[in-house]
């Protein structure tokens, strides 16, 4: 058996070597739900869309300069309340039709159309007022007010008017979501087992890689093996546990990917006994984050430059919005937890906590793909609660279900949900904690609602100065650390691994493939 296995492996490796001549393949933790930029909900959606579409303006991943591939000239109009865009010439959509000012205005109008139920579009409705086409190559985008650095605000992907027959109310379940038409370097098509990208030479793009495939990675160990065997050439997110293996290989390179991500355990504060803040605070003390981090992520105690740092609120510690005067709970404190639970009217019988005579047990879920970054974390958390006298049934939730049910506030039969949020330059957390109503709180997992929190979020929204905005979020951080709609766990750095045959693969912060034209594959 062993012998035949080695023969198989040898055959496999050689077959894999031969196979790399075909397409460049990379692994994501999950497949994108949609390739329609208006409905991106996961980072994998954004990354895939960056290959297919052009954002109007973007930051160069090399020197962070604000650049545009679609606009060759611009000027402010209407006393700063508008910007006139002169489009670059020779740009075609992936179906061969020319890119015109109509497309820019169509995109703006579809984002302003309330029949487009997109949280991303919702964000733009505060700033954008409309758009007029002056000519085929000139459009004027109107703002609701005078804004500083207007180009910075125009970071949306441009959609083709003809693909929607001019209908600005765009629904998520159109074929466009699977087979979009963009102006980006690659033409993308979502298949049943992955996404295929074909290079599309254009006036403003000249990709060097003719074909690329995105596949779902599944087991992280197998993913690393496949990378080492050259069956795939890249993994977007490598679990900290496996980074040493990547560093130790001459054929792999570990690449930095700037993404501000933090992990949490959302608490269903609408259900008893979790509706009692003291119970939530007790859970916060029950968790031994240091042990969790060591077992699941592999961070040794006292390790310097750890990829994983504890947090006490909804920001990464390096962020100016992070309130450093609020300490993170690093070790469990069962004494405090017991005192709080007793105060909340619970009693411990035979080592198990009881509430109103019933043993306390929580239904806990986690987005399944997180297991790739922090293996078995759900079991470790559940074990810690068990050890503290609280039972739990734990479930792994598929990424799509997480997108359609968890972040839309429909998994209310759960008590606790383990998840991760990622941010770019903007660290706006309002959508996570606002009371759900009229386009607010669109990502409020357990429909948390707290008057003071709403007031602070509104304060941030209307802040006239940077200081006011920052103060509002510092107060929000403190308030959330007390009220605990989430148990805040840690921020975790993201690293990618690519085979060394993939050259000049500059990775853009957050969007990843912004500089894809320069990528080369010498496999």
């Amino acid at each position, binding site marked *: 058996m062993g012998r035949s296995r080695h023969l198989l492996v040898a055959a496999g490796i050689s077959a894999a070597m031969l196979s790399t001549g075909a397409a460049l393949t990379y692994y994501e933790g999950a497949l994108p739900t949609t390739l329609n930029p208006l409905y991106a909900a996961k980072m994998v959606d954004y990354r895939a869309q960056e290959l297919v579409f052009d954002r109007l303006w973007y930051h160069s991943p090399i020197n962070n300069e604000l650049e545009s591939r679609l606009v060759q000239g611009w000027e402010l109009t209407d006393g700063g309340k508008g910007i006139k865009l002169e489009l670059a010439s020779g740009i075609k959509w992936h179906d061969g039709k020319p890119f015109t000012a109509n497309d820019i205005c169509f995109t703006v109008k579809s984002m302003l159309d309330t029949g487009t139920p997109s949280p991303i579009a919702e964000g733009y409705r505060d700033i954008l007022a409309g758009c007029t086409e002056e000519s085929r190559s000139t459009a004027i985008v109107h703002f609701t007010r005078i804004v500083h650095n207007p180009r910075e605000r125009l970071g949306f992907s441009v959609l083709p008017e003809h693909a929607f027959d001019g209908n600005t109310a765009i629904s998520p379940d159109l074929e466009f979501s699977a087979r979009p038409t963009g102006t980006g370097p690659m033409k993308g098509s979502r298949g049943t087992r992955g996404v295929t990208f074909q290079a599309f030479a254009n006036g403003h793009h000249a990709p060097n890689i003719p074909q690329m495939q995105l596949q779902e990675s599944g087991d992280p*160990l197998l993913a690393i093996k496949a990378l080492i065997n050259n069956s795939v050439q890249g993994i977007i997110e490598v679990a900290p546990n496996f980074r040493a293996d990547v560093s130790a290989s001459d054929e792999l390179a570990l690449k930095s990917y700037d993404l501000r991500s933090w992990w949490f355990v959302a608490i269903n504060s609408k259900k008893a006994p979790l509706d009692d803040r003291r119970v939530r605070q007790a859970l916060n003390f029950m968790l031994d984050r240091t042990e969790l981090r060591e077992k699941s992520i592999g961070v040794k105690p006292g390790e310097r430059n750890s990829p994983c740092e504890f947090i006490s609120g909804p920001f990464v510690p390096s962020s100016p919005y992070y309130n450093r005067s609020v300490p993170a709970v690093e070790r469990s404190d069962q004494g405090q937890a017991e005192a709080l639970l007793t105060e909340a009217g619970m009693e411990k019988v035979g080592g198990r906590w009881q509430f109103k005579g019933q043993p306390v047990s929580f239904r806990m879920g986690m987005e399944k793909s997180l297991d790739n970054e922090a293996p078995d974390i759900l079991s470790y958390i559940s*074990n810690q609660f068990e050890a503290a006298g609280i039972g739990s049934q734990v479930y792994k939730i598929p990424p799509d279900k997480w997108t359609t049910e968890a972040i839309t506030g429909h998994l209310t039969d759960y008590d606790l949900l383990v998840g991760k949020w990622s941010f770019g330059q903007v660290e706006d957390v309002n959508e996570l904690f606002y009371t759900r109503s009229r386009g607010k709180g669109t990502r409020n997992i357990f429909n948390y609602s707290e008057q003071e929190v709403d007031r602070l979020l509104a304060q941030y929204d209307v802040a006239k100065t940077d200081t006011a905005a920052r103060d509002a979020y510092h107060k929000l951080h403190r308030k959330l650390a007390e009220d605990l709609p989430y148990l805040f766990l840690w921020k975790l750095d993201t690293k990618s691994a690519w085979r060394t045959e993939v050259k000049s693969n500059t990775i853009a912060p957050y969007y990843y493939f912004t500089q894809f034209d320069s990528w080369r594959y010498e496999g």
Partner: protein
Amino acid sequence: MPRNVAILFTIISLGVLVVLAFHSPERWTVMAEAESYASPFELPPFGADSRGRPLTDYAMQGAHIVALPAVVAGLLVTFLGIVGGLVRCMGSARVESIVAGLREVVGALPRMVVILVVAILMPLEWRSLMGLAVVWALLAAPGAMDEAAAVAGRLGGARFVEALRAHGFSRVRIYLYHVVALNLRPVVVRQGAETLMQVVFLEVALSFLALAAGEPSFTHNEATTKSWADLLYQGYQFIAMDVPSGHALVLGLLLVAVTAVAAVSISSAARAR
């Protein structure tokens, strides 16, 4: 196989499964990285997985997942088989035609398709192996009833009962002893044993596929419980990726074999003298 040997095998194989199921831990042993992929010699009796968890947990939890549903499905099919045989003995043409019609409808659809359709329609909180096992049993029942009816038919059906009545036996004795115990037993027990085995294989198949697709299983909570399918999945990793988990494959195959042996030996043990 000789009947006594079959009985011995039945006792041993079922015993193994029952003991494993009853000693199943509620949640698996906390990992010990140092024991990662420990061989059966390093961590008796079965070795450990990638995170140092003993494979014994997998064996026991897997047995716990399948034990009750498989037995229930087996008994259900046995019971319905008996009903089918007795109906033939009663000689009710209407009931027989209903059974035949039922068999036609059920037999016209692939079982696995029905199982999956039921799985998606079943409310989340109802989803469990038990539900699927019962559906599987109901799908298998018409065949069993048909075969039992054929056996009863060969006995002479209603005429057989009348003949025994003439010898002065009570109806209850005739049906339960002469018909069921002496004549239907081999068929219905074999059908029940096969269903038992099929339900175990169904669980393994569904869990393996869910595992391979990175999706939650229909049959158990994979975050706290491990199925035998997890052993086979590790076996797949051993073959495909040279992961040192050959011992998991061996254990997985062993458990599947024990189930098959149990089914065969039950059938043999129940066959007529």
